[in-house]
């Protein structure tokens, strides 16, 4: 039976290595989870005690103390009375983790077919061990999203949520509804003038006309003219839109063999990779599309469409997200 020993030995070594690795990862994960919890508490002005932390992480008191000591050694936390406070370094790590978590959530919902209910759990696993550069690259790939799929804001690198910063009104395009988030209170006379015109945080405005010397605004239905220097004091974000996406009656999936349709647009919830791909292939608003083939074996799934002179096959779920309207055969 000597031959059995060698594979068994190899197996043992491999297993041992694996366990050690697992242990190290766990240690770091718990530490990061603890930081995340503490960061959360500070954000919401709650007190974080070692007991609460132990409860949250499911650790014994001893283990929690060991963990806290490790964190203190690394300069991530301080003890302020009975509470645990984050040091600036700890805060920075907390912010990074929060960003990573929400960006991953956004990624999972935009690029993959993971159901919304599972997104949080998967993101919890993936948010660890990312360098700031990797987080930035992820953010860029996602096109700088403002919110995660649950509607929570995704903070910028500096810890500001985009919604809080806003853009100076002078950089805002004409005609796009905006909501004021911030008015500079320095210098005071400009601040007073802005207030006098009714430009307060929370108010919605639209730029009607932009001239070098000033802006013509609609503020709550009233026409207002302000000078550029005042406009520069006012920071806005896109006004939240209440209008639900109305469901056009027809999508490409509804076409029958040989039928043509004009594309109205791709559903809003199709994002990321797939949206880019569909656009690049020419499924843009106004494109005339004809269904020319159906897969017999898949009971009409996928179908092939002639779009902009080539034949592209799409699966049903995707075709159903491209809204269209019927066109007459003699058109186009």
């Amino acid at each position, binding site marked *: 039976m000597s*031959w*059995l020993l060698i*594979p068994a030995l190899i197996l043992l070594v491999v297993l041992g290595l694996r366990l050690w690795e697992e242990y190290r990862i766990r240690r770091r994960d718990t530490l990061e989870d603890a930081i995340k919890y503490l960061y959360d508490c500070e954000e919401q002005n709650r007190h974080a005690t070692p007991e609460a932390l132990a409860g949250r992480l499911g650790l014994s008191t001893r283990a929690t103390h060991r963990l806290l000591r490790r964190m203190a050694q690394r300069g991530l936390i301080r003890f302020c009375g009975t509470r645990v406070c984050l040091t600036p370094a700890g805060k920075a790590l907390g912010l990074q983790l929060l960003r990573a978590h929400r960006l991953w959530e956004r990624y*999972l919902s935009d*690029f*993959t*077919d*993971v159901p919304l209910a599972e997104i949080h759990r998967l993101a919890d696993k*993936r948010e660890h061990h990312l*360098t700031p*550069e*990797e987080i*930035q*690259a992820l*953010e*860029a*790939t*996602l*096109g*700088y999203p403002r919110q995660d799929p649950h509607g929570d804001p995704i903070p910028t690198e500096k810890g500001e949520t985009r919604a809080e910063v*806003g*853009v100076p009104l002078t*950089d805002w*395009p*004409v005609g*796009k509804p905006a909501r004021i988030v911030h008015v500079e209170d320095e210098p005071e006379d400009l601040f007073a003038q802005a207030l006098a015109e009714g430009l307060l945080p929370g108010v919605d405005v639209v730029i009607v006309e932009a001239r070098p010397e000033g802006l013509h605004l609609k503020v709550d239905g009233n026409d207002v003219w302000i000078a550029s220097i005042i406009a520069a004091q006012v920071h806005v974000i*896109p006004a939240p839109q209440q209008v639900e996406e109305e469901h056009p009656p027809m999508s490409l999936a509804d076409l029958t063999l040989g039928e043509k349709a004009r594309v109205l*647009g791709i559903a809003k919830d199709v994002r*990321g*990779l*797939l949206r*880019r*791909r*569909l*656009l*690049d*292939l*020419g499924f*843009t*608003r*106004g*494109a005339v599309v004809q269904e*020319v*083939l159906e*897969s*017999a*074996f*898949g009971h009409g*799934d*996928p179908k*092939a469409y002639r779009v*902009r*002179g*080539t*034949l*592209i*096959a*799409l*699966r049903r779920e*995707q075709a159903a997200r491209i809204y269209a309207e019927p066109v007459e055969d003699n058109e186009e």
Partner: protein
Amino acid sequence: MARACKNCPLYVQQLGIDLSDWDYLVALAGNPNTGKSTLFNRLTGLKQHVGNWPGKTVSRAEGGFEFNGKRYKLVDLPGTYSLLSASVEEEIARDFILFGNPDAVIVVMDATAIERNLNLTLQILEITDRVVIALNLMDEARRKGIHVDHRRLARELGVPVVPIVARTGEGLGYLMQALEDVIEGRVRTHPRRIPLDPALEHAVAELVPLIEEAFPGVRNARWIAIRLLDGDPSIERAVKTGELKRLISGELPGDFLEAVGEQTSTESGEEYPPGVLILQKADLLRMALEEDFRDKLVEDIYNEAARIARLVVRIENPEALTWDERIDRIVTHPVWGLPIMLLGLALAFWVTVVGANYPSELLATVLFAVENIGSRIFDALGMPWWITGFLWHGVYRGLAWVVSVMLPPMAIFFPIFTTLEDLGYLPRVAFNMDWLFKRVGAHGKQALTMTMGFGCNAAGVIATRIIESPRERLIAILTNNFVPCNGRWPTLIMLGTVFVASAFPPGFAAFAAAGSIVGAVLVGILFTFIVSWLLSHTLLKGEPSAFTLELPPYRRPDFKRILYTSFIDRTIFVLWRALYMAAPAGGLIWILANVHIHGRSLVHIIASFLDPFGRLFGLDGVIILSYIVAIPANEIVVPTMIMAYSGASTVMELENLHALKELLVGQAGWTLLTAISLMLFAVLHNPCSTTILTIWKETGSKKWTLVGALMPLGIAFLVTFLVAQTWHLLGLPLTP
């Protein structure tokens, strides 16, 4: 253009890969499947692979040619639909156009799909103004009655447009002339710029001066501004670190992409302040844009493309267009589609197996006769027996085996496969089979990469790049190994003929052999589906996924080229593998068989050590040893086994099946179970080292490489273990 000739590339001197002292650097860009590689081959005399499905070329290729006394370096880029999406291929193409500082870009357009092709063309014109357009596939356009007014197109785009047929070389002279004129400034181009949405235009206008100030000499600030607003990680990195400066000055090579990618992990975080400022500004400006501004951008480009296409394209004969559709109706027909596909596949295999038989035997006879003669000459010269043995019965025999067994099937299978590929049939297979792949969470295009895998798994793994959806691509990579490649056929064929066929009357023997081989292939396909399902529901949960599949128009295959690539290319490939993999293995096994310790050869010692382990799986020690020796190349499994069994003493006539059976059953004690287990093992076991290396290159991840290598091995052991133990439990017969 008076100097150019119409039909011949008279002035073009092909330089192959000779890239010394080139004067001009030229890139070939364009949509997938428009004939870039065909044009590249035509100009350089090289043999890039071409095929009628989008995404055939997946990385850059370089070659040279000479025209009018000037030497050109030509770069064949992968085809892309757009430069806005930042997929791998797009980045390769985009980075080269942006930062490779080419003296000119030839945009290859498909004359039969102008509107689609204009999308990319307009984007390239946005980046660079040194562009010449090669309006390719003019023969197809004429056949389909599509008339393209190329002069009008040139006026609209502001750059020269030359109609060509890359396959025959028609129009190449003009193309070269136009290229030279543009490079040397004799023709001034005024490329059309896409009118942007006002809000976007505003944001771009704010950024451009900043970019121009921070990076003096930048030629395409507008494009960079658009990409920054859109959020393009690699461009952002280049701006933030100031890398862009060095790129513009040409200090960094055009293939900096890989370099940048590697750096990020170790990056010291060095920043270029003006660059950081630009990013912050872009951040602000982006907020002011509609969230779907990219939709608008693409829409604007396509609207422009549609407008131009309406002006320049006239369809004279709409009837001709419907031909493709008619064929499509048949090959995707509910009743005929499947039989056509299966018959085609079965036919391809049958022709390969039967057709390869005779040439294989002939080659074997000749090559082994040479071995006899050679070793006798050595003996006559009085060489020590071990030199003769090592060189002739070791190294040479390994080589001869691989050549005689591998070359004929390859030479037959590849022309058939390439013809189907050139015809445009393969994407239809993907379309037909997608419903099955969809069920297991995979992509229909996996059918294509699997077919490639029949030739060579490494090639199959590379081909997975056509699957744009990362999750489905990983699935295709990790499961490609379950289709037996050419190197594993010899094992299957040998088992089929020696064990299965001999059990049937002569009339049925061939069918039975083919049937058992098809059976083994089906087992492999079955596991492809099972494992795909498992992967997509476990490990690969949460990897990105999307599905689109282009069905290219049917084209007449280019038989001359097919025969050329199949014979020359494949011969070289097989010979090379034989030389590098089989010859050393042959030598090694000869040594193992001939070095004796205490009267037992090394093979004997190792094999008997491994034997109990092998028995667990219905195999034996020699088989396990052979698979260890054959990790670099599966082709040498059978020769290794035979050499190990027969030892150095017997000089065996390999082409004699009875002798082989005698050896395996009589001497080595093989049973029916051994044959079955070995067949399963051959189909399921780990990929060869080349494939593993390819997986590593393609995924760039140690984790997936490990999974790709060990998972099949685990499955192979598990399956054979179960089969063997059940066999013993049920007390099934062991005699073959």
